[in-house]
């Protein structure tokens, strides 16, 4: 049952990811990207990462995708702005890179000695808000504080970039 859900969800995620780069209309691409994100959220739940799954839906499928939709609608792209959807010049290069990368990934996964899942001996708070929060505010407090600096810089950068006169 678990395997069936995994196969179905990952198929949805992969097919939607393919459609993201094959669509000509950016709005349709955003919708397929959202499908991929929600499918990945289901995979996160299967991996007992409940908090991260909720974050995935709220932050990615909610905030970031709305930002994308805003920009696409703000730009008001016409049909001819989309251009030909695929650069034919780079297609062989892309296929070659993709094949090499995929084979490399699979070989590494196959060759690495990955120990079996610990399974039942996970703590009860694994992946919950409590568990993630405890890690975030004790072990990883310094990186967490640095995150706020990153966000401030990003906000300032976005405001400066989007000003009328650069």
């Amino acid at each position, binding site marked *: 049952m678990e395997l069936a859900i*995994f196969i179905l969800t*990952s198929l949805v995620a*992969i097919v939607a990811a393919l459609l*993201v*780069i094959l669509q000509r209309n*950016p709005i349709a*691409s*955003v919708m397929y*990207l959202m499908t*991929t994100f929600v499918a*990945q959220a289901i*995979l*996160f739940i*299967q*991996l007992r*990462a409940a*908090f*991260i799954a909720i974050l*995935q839906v709220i*932050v*990615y499928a909610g905030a970031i995708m709305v*930002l*994308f939709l805003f*920009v696409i609608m703000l*730009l008001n*792209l016409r049909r001819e*702005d*989309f*251009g030909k*959807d695929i*650069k034919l010049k*780079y297609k062989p290069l*892309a296929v070659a*890179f*993709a094949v090499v*990368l*995929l084979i490399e*990934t*699979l070989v590494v*996964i196959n060759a690495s000695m990955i*120990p079996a*899942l*610990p399974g039942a001996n*996970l703590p009860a708070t694994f*992946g919950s808000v409590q*568990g993630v929060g405890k*890690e*975030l505010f004790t*072990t990883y407090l310094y*990186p967490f504080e640095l*995150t706020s600096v*990153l*966000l401030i810089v*990003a906000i300032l*950068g*976005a*405001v400066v*970039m*989007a000003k009328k006169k*650069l």
Partner: protein
Amino acid sequence: MVPLEYYLVVAGIIFTIGMIGVIVARNIIIIFMAIELMLNAANLAMIAFSRNLGSMGGHVMVFMIMTVAAAEAAVGLSIIIALFRNRDSANIDEVNLMKW
């Protein structure tokens, strides 16, 4: 119980799709979405390893990656707006001043 390798294979495939998108797409917004796809594939691998090792470190790492992705989306989309205002096009082939 689904083996860890299956999740890693799915993450690898999604990452590869994202990479093809960055190389092949012409519309700058689609390129941006392909970058988000790659970030998400990395997230999936992190969570899978975290589950496998029984450690919460991967969850915190995914939290950080999401922050970086949000910052990157905000700055990148404002760059796209500035670009569109100057060039009136979302086609990256027309942005070729720094290309040799």
